């Protein structure tokens, strides 16, 4: 049962892909029945694409310097950035996956929304302001602030690219499956459309276009989910108790949906997952990058506050939508695959699998027009998330690897931005190819792995280099690598990969999520190898802490980074 935890969480983010593995006896999304072309959805989606391409065109005209390209010139306000962060974070998977999980098991869905939310206060209290004060375009700027540029930039670029790669594959496969289901488009077309559009947004419009795509998508998603929740609550006279009572009467599990079920069975896995979700959020490169788009630490701080508010509100909506789906759909055979004599299982037989609960609810509450709108929003959501990931990966290649490591800082801004655009195109093409290759693979573990790597490599290196004076290059490098390697190894040896992907009989690592082991390994590694480092370079690095400390705490010396 415990393997459900990582798989389910991964699915919540990586929607669709591998959901048949998630609920072992659950819905089968693997065998997708293609829908007829859904014209309302396609037209609404085309409107979204046209609007965002218009924004990209305008953004391209305004994007001249490297600061424009990577950080939207630092001209995004705290409120706008809060919406954009929420847009980056509220994936189609949180929307459809969590509401689907609530539909299938009630309370358990709430456990995951909470896990995804609680990382944000930590980001605010420990990371956001210091990051803005120290960095320029990527979190590597901060991690390598007083450490060796070459080694630490390579480490954080690798950490970035690993997280981006796994996240992106999961999103591409989920996107292809979802679009096939929603729009009736072929899987390959769907993946190519997503890939091409994200290349256009990122390569032409840079951070400015990507930010506005996120903001528009966040508004559409919040508006759609709000409307759906209001229609549901309206039916129950705005009494949640009446809604819960009706759901308990309707759901085959009855009163069990109001209490924790089988999802958190093994406390070690539960805590490990909690650690990965909480601290992984603070190590996701595409999220960290968003803090450089605002003018100062105060705006960075406000953006997390707004983002937390929007994300919390959104997760409460998904909870209402899940319960709404129970009450609106379960007694209507029109939403189910019917067996002999019209009999159906109220959970397993829902058309397209439980992840489609919110989509069917749109149909039940607002007819085909609302169904088209919500489908288009789901597509837009995927597009926005992959664009953010691509920009982050491209920046790691151009800003960290090319400009600082290969060219050793001797490169013109124009050349660096050009390299970044080329990287975005290459990443987009690679993502299309990988999306195609992995079509029928179990990719559900990949988002869990992305969070585990972010929590075990990016986060410890970032936090220690900023907060602990004694951190040296050798310590950060060895500790970060140990965290990265141990997280990846433990996931590979766990059931999700070792048994379900490679087909071995027994898993070699008993837990679903490595974070409870790999995070301490990383922190201990950084501490030990920094302590053992008696080199002259280490002495210089420790001595350089004071200047970094003043800037990270006060922002003195930081403001200039974005002003032209």
């Amino acid at each position, binding site marked *: 049962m415990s393997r459900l935890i990582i798989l389910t969480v991964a699915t919540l983010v990586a929607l669709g892909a591998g959901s048949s593995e998630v609920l072992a006896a659950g819905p089968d999304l693997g065998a997708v029945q293609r829908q007829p072309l859904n014209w309302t959805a396609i037209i609404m989606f085309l409107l979204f694409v046209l609007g965002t391409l218009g924004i990209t065109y305008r953004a391209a005209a305004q994007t001249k310097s490297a600061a424009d390209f990577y950080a939207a010139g630092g001209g995004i306000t705290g409120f706008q950035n809060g919406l954009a962060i929420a847009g980056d974070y509220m994936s189609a998977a949180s929307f459809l996956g969590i509401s689907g999980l609530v539909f299938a098991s009630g*309370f358990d869905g*709430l*456990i995951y*929304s*909470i*896990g995804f*939310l*609680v990382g*944000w*206060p*930590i980001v*605010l*209290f*420990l990371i956001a*302001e210091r990051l803005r004060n120290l960095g320029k375009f990527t979190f590597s700027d901060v991690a390598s602030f007083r450490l060796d540029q070459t080694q630490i930039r390579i480490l954080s670029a690798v950490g970035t690219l690993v997280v981006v790669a796994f996240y992106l594959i999961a999103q591409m496969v989920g996107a292809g499956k979802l679009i096939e289901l929603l729009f009736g488009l072929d899987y390959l077309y769907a993946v190519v459309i997503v890939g091409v559009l994200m290349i256009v947004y990122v390569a032409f419009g840079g951070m400015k276009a990507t930010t506005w795509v996120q903001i528009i998508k966040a508004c559409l998603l919040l508006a759609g989910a709000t409307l759906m929740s209001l229609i549901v609550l309206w039916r129950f006279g705005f009494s*949640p*108790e009446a809604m*819960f*009572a009706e759901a*308990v009467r309707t759901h085959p599990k009855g*009163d069990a949906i*109001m*209490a*924790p079920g089988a999802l*958190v*069975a*093994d*406390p070690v896995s*539960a*805590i490990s997952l*909690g650690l990965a979700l*909480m601290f992984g959020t603070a190590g996701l490169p595409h999220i960290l990058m968003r803090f450089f788009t605002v003018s100062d630490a*105060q705006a960075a*701080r*406000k953006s*997390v*506050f707004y983002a*937390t*508010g929007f994300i*919390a509100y959104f*997760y*409460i909506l998904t*909870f209402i939508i899940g319960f709404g789906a129970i009450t609106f759909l379960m007694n209507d055979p029109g939403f189910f695959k019917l067996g002999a004599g019209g009999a159906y299982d109220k959970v397993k037989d829902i058309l397209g699998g439980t992840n489609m609960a919110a989509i069917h609810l749109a149909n039940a509450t607002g007819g085909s027009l609302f169904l088209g709108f919500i489908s288009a929003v789901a597509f837009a959501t995927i597009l926005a998330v992959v664009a953010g990931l691509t920009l982050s990966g491209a920046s790691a290649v151009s800003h960290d690897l090319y400009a600082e490591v290969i060219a050793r800082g001797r490169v013109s801004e124009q050349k660096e931005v050009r390299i970044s655009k080329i990287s975005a195109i290459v990443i987009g093409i690679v993502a299309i190819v990988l999306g195609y290759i992995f079509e029928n693979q179990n990719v559900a573990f990949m988002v869990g792995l992305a969070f585990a790597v972010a929590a075990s490599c990016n986060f410890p290196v970032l936090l220690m280099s900023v907060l602990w004076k004694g951190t040296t290059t050798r310590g950060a490098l060895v500790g970060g690598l140990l965290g990265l390697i141990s997280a990846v190894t433990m996931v590979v040896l766990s059931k999700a990969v070792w048994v379900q992907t490679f087909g071995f009989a027994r898993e070699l690592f008993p837990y679903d999520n490595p974070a409870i082991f790999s995070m301490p390994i990383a922190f201990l590694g950084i501490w030990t190898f920094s302590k053992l480092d008696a080199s002259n370079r280490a002495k210089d690095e420790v001595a350089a802490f*004071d*200047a970094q*400390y*003043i800037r990270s*705490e*006060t*922002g*003195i*010396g930081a403001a200039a980074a974005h002003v032209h």
Partner: protein
Amino acid sequence: MAAQDYNQLLRSPQFQELVRQRSKFAWTLSIAMLVIYFGFILLVAFAKPLLATKVGDGVTSLGIILGLSVILSAFVLTGIYVQRANSRFDELTRHLTREIM
């Protein structure tokens, strides 16, 4: 800034006061969030019957109330931090910057 300026700033009571107050506040709130979240997870893992307890006469369970409270607490904690930072910490920082400029 030259090296002696750094040393001067580091030793200045205002700087030390700012850093001491803010890091104490930030770590207190971080620990509060950790305790709330992992407390909830441990209840889910070890005290399922408790979370299934009904609140009042209806079907709403203690688990749902607590779960929604955890979501709310995350937002409230960020609000508390931002409020204090916007007033107190920003003011201390402004004083400090003015002094060295």
